[in-house]
C-alpha cells in the first residue's frame, strides 16, 4: 500500500492507495508516527479514496491511530470512503468513532 502525505494549515492528509490489510501495518504506522509527533498538526485526515480493499486488521490500525492521536490532542477524520471501504465501515459502525467525511 502506498501512502502520500500532504500538509496544510495544521492539518495533515494521509492518502492511501491500494490494499489496506495486515501487510500495510508497518507502512501505516511509520507514516503516522511522524505526523503524531508534529506539534503543529491538529487534525489527521485519512483519505481512503484510493483504497480498493479494507479488512478488520485495517480497522484495528485506524483504532490505534485514533488512540495515539487522542493522546497527542489531535483529531482523526476519514474521507472519500467508497464502495467496499464504505460498506465495511458501515457494518462496523465506525461512524460512531470517527468523523467520516
Amino acid at each position: 500500500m502506498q501512502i502520500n502525505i500532504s500538509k496544510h494549515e495544521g492539518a495533515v492528509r494521509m492518502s492511501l492507495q491500494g490494499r489496506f490489510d495486515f501487510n500495510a501495518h508497518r507502512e501505516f504506522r511509520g507514516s503516522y508516527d511522524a505526523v503524531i509527533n508534529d506539534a503543529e498538526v491538529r487534525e489527521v485526515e485519512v483519505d481512503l479514496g484510493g483504497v480498493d480493499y479494507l479488512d478488520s486488521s485495517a480497522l484495528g490500525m485506524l483504532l490505534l491511530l485514533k488512540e495515539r492521536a487522542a493522546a497527542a490532542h489531535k483529531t482523526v477524520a476519514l474521507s472519500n470512503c467508497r464502495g467496499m471501504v464504505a460498506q465495511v465501515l458501515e457494518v462496523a459502525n465506525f461512524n460512531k468513532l470517527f468523523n467520516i467525511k
Partner: protein
Amino acid sequence: MHERLKVLVVDDAEENVTLLCRFVERMGHDVVVARDGQQALDLFQAEAPDMVLMDVMMPVMNGFEATSRIKALPGRRWVPVIMLTALAQDTDLAAGLEAGADDYLTKPINMVVLQAKVKAMQRIARLQSRLAEQNEELARYHDQAEEERLIGCHIMERITATRGLDDALLRYRIFPAAQFSGDLVAAARTPGNVLHVMLADATGHGLSAALNVMPLTQVFYSMTEKGFSLASITDELNHKIKSMMPSGRFVAATLVAVNAREGVMEVWNGGTPEALFMDADGRIVRSWKSKHLPLGILSKGEFDPQPEVFQHDQPGQLFLCSDGLSEAEDVQGQQLGQDSVVRTLAAVPPQSRFDHLLQALHEHLGGRQAHDDVSMIMVDFAKDPADVAAAQAVAPVGSLSRGKPGEWRFHASIGTDQLKQLDVVPLMLNVIEQIEHMRAHISPIFLIVSELYTNALDHGLLHLDSGMKSEPGGFDQYMEQRHERLQELDDGSIELSLEQVEIGGQPLLRIWMKDSGAGFDHSAVMQRDIAGNRQAYGRGVALIRSLSQQVEYRGSGNEVTVLYSLAGAKPG
C-alpha cells in the same frame, strides 16, 4: 582459507597425474589418485574428498559418467568437481557441465588458473555448508512450531467447548481459513431454558485471532449457565475484550437469546452481517443489521449492550453468519454475496436449508478454501408455552442428600438503583448454587424466582399491564413502556429471601418476596393467564403454581410466599 583439503585426482595418463599431484601438494593439500571413472567412484565413497579433479577420456568409465554418478550419491555435503578437458573442445565442456561438473580446466593445466579455481570452489563450498546448516536449523524450528500448533489445537478444543452446540434446535459450521479459526460459535441454555447463541469474528485470522475469542467462551458459558440476561453477558464480553486485548483488537459478534416459552427473541449485533429470521415460506420476517461497534472498543458506560427484542408466534429460523460467507470467492474471484445466501436458504423447506447452503458454498468455492474464516449457525424457532422441560429438577448422580432445615437463610434487599442495573436473579441464585444439595433444583427455582421477580418489578413497581403483551403490536409497546418506566423509577425496592425449612417432616424451600408497590390483583392476573393459554403452565403465576407446592399472596398482593419441595428430584 588455509584449510587443508583432500583432493581426488582422476586421470589415466601418468604424466597428468604426476603434474596434478605436484600442483595440488604445492598448494598445501593432500591427494588421492584414481585411474578411471570406476576407481573414482569407489575412492570418492571411501575417502570422502573435499574436491575432485576429473579427466574426461578414461577406460572402464569416462569422466562424464563418473561425475554424474558422484553427483547422484546421497549426502548433504557439496563436493565441487572440476573437469579437465582437452583444449577448446566445446562439446566436452558442455557435456561436462551437463553431467554435473561445477567448473572446467583446459589442458595443459596451468598452475595459476588451477589455484584460482580451487580457491573459488572453496568459497562456494563454504556458502553451501552454511546453507545446509541453516536448513537444518529451519527444520528444527518447523518441528517445534508443529508441536506447539498441535498443543494449541488441543487446548482450543477444550476451551471452546461445544457441548451447548449439540442442541437439537441448532445447525452450525465453521470453515477456518487457517489452522486456527478467528471465528467462534457458541450456544448454551439458561436455567430457565432460554437458548443463548453467540457468533463471534475476531480481527484477522489464525492463532492471534483465535486467542482473541478464547476469553469469550468462558464468560458466555458460565454467565448463561447462571441465568444472566443477554444484555449482562454482552456487557461483560465487551469489558473483557476491552481490558484483556491490546488496542486495535476487537471482536465483531452477534448474540441471541431465544425464549421459546414466551415466543421472544433478543438480538444484539455489533459488526457482523445482518442476522435474519426466515419463516417457513422463505420470507424474511425480521432482520437485524449491525447497530453497534464490535466488542472491545468502547469502555463500560459508553458501550450499549441492550439487544433488540422481537416477539413472534409463528415458527421460523434464525440465521447468523460471519462475513467470510458472503465474501467467499469462486475461481474467477466473484463473491458469493448476501443476496445469494438468502436466495439459497429461501429456495428449500426449512429442514433442508442449512445443508442446501453448505452445498451451494461448496460449489461456489469449487473445492478451494475460502480466504477468510467462514462460520454460520441456524436456530429453529417455535413458540412453545409448555417449554419448561429443563425445569424438572434433575438429581446429580448418587446424591439424594437433603441437608437439615434451618441450616441456612438468604435475604437480599434490592434498592432502586440496583433494580435498574443488576441482573438480580442470577446473582442471588449463584449463592444458592454453592449449597450442594440445592444444585439439583436450580432450574425450577430459577424459574420460580424469575417469575416472582418479574411480577414484582413489572406489575408491583412499574404498573405494567401484561395483557398488553398478547395484543397485536402490544409486545413492543410493553417493552418500550417497561424500559421508560424503569428509567423513571425513583423510589422502589424488592426484598427477597430464600430459606430451607421443614414442614410436616418434609424439606422445603421457602421463597419470600415483597415489593414496595401498592400490590396487584393477583387473582385477576391468574384468571387472565389461564384464559390466555390453552396450557396454563406457561405463564406467570400459573407457572409458579405448577412448579411449587404452595403459593400464598398476602396483603395487597405485594407480598408472596412460595413453598417448593426439596423432597426428591427426578433422576437425570
